């Protein structure tokens, strides 16, 4: 399951999960639309181990600025509440799973 994350729920989502992954996207972004189904599959495959959320950067620009996001899709990966990686751009599911599970 992918959780819809907003500026008001972001901190809680990150701090209450050992590993939290946030897909930063926007509706008019083609690569983001292609990333959507991949993120859904990752959430299903890593269920119970990793919390997966998605954040609309258009509606939550404060988070985008805080994490210095310049391009989407950007995947923010947190471990124990700390940002450990932030891959940018459309990537295959296997690559992302490897990045996420190796943190």
């Amino acid at each position: 399951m992918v959780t819809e994350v907003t500026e008001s729920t972001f901190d809680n989502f990150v701090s209450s999960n050992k590993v939290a992954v946030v897909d930063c996207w926007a509706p008019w972004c083609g690569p983001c639309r292609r990333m959507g189904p991949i993120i859904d599959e990752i959430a299903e495959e890593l269920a119970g181990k990793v919390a997966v959320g998605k954040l609309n950067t258009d509606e939550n620009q404060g988070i985008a600025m805080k994490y210095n996001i310049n391009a989407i899709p950007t995947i923010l990966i947190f471990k124990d509440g700390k940002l450990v990686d932030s891959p940018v751009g459309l990537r295959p599911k296997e690559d992302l799973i490897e990045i996420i599970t190796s943190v």
Partner: protein
Amino acid sequence: MEVDVAVIGCGPAGIQAAMHASRKKTSVVVMGRIQSSAIHGCRLDNYLGTGKTEGSAILEEGRAQAESTGARFLGQNVIAAAGTGNGFDLTVEDGTEYHAKAVVLATGISRKKLGIPGEKELFGKGVSYCAVCDCNFYKGRKAVIVGNDSEAATSAEMMTSYASETSWVTWETVADRSLVAKAEKAGVRIYGSKPESITGTDRVEALVLEDGTSIPTDGVFIELGAKSSADLAMDLGAMPEIDDTLKVGRDMSTGVPGLFACGDITGRPWQVAKAVGEGCVAGTSAADFAKGAK
């Protein structure tokens, strides 16, 4: 303007599709530029019965064949596309709108990288390949658009609504004149030299041109060529694979009713022989679909 079949792409796949669709007595328009085909400027020696042949000669002869059965070549790229559920709306560079019952996507695979120092290293740190996606992050910051086609001109004009300063680097401009004028009117600063490198360590600081000019900037948006095949496919309702190819059936159908694909966009081998065979099937299927939809 109403048409039965719109072919997007002017390479061997698109031209062959146009030939077969127009032979089935449907009205056919072909969008794109022959000069943009991957075989334009190449010499072929592995296509049946032609010996060593210039790619441009095959394309020009093919266009004449397709025109002889009524296909119209517009010589313009698509700048906007949408699936309506009842056909497809397509806008070309001079603003003309077409409504097509069926579409054949034969755009090839996008080759969008500049291949200059700093491009790969600074991707996501100021380098972007999608102005529409990322313009929002450049409010009040400086942006440079790089590219020669109408897509770059449109992106530059759009960026002026976000960035404090928008520059456009275009060294072999083929963008439609009216779109260039719009960008200029919106306040875009135009540079005419080819990019040489992107500088910066943790983030983009400047784009350096071959003539020595250094343009200080926060973002470099690389918008080479026409609208990307993947974006076009999505606008028309199809979802590309991760490598930008489209899955097709035996009749070159994409799963979206009325949308067919052929050539490099359906995957390897990237060969004229394969493109032409698929173009034949796609053009025939699109014409059959359009006739059924009449």
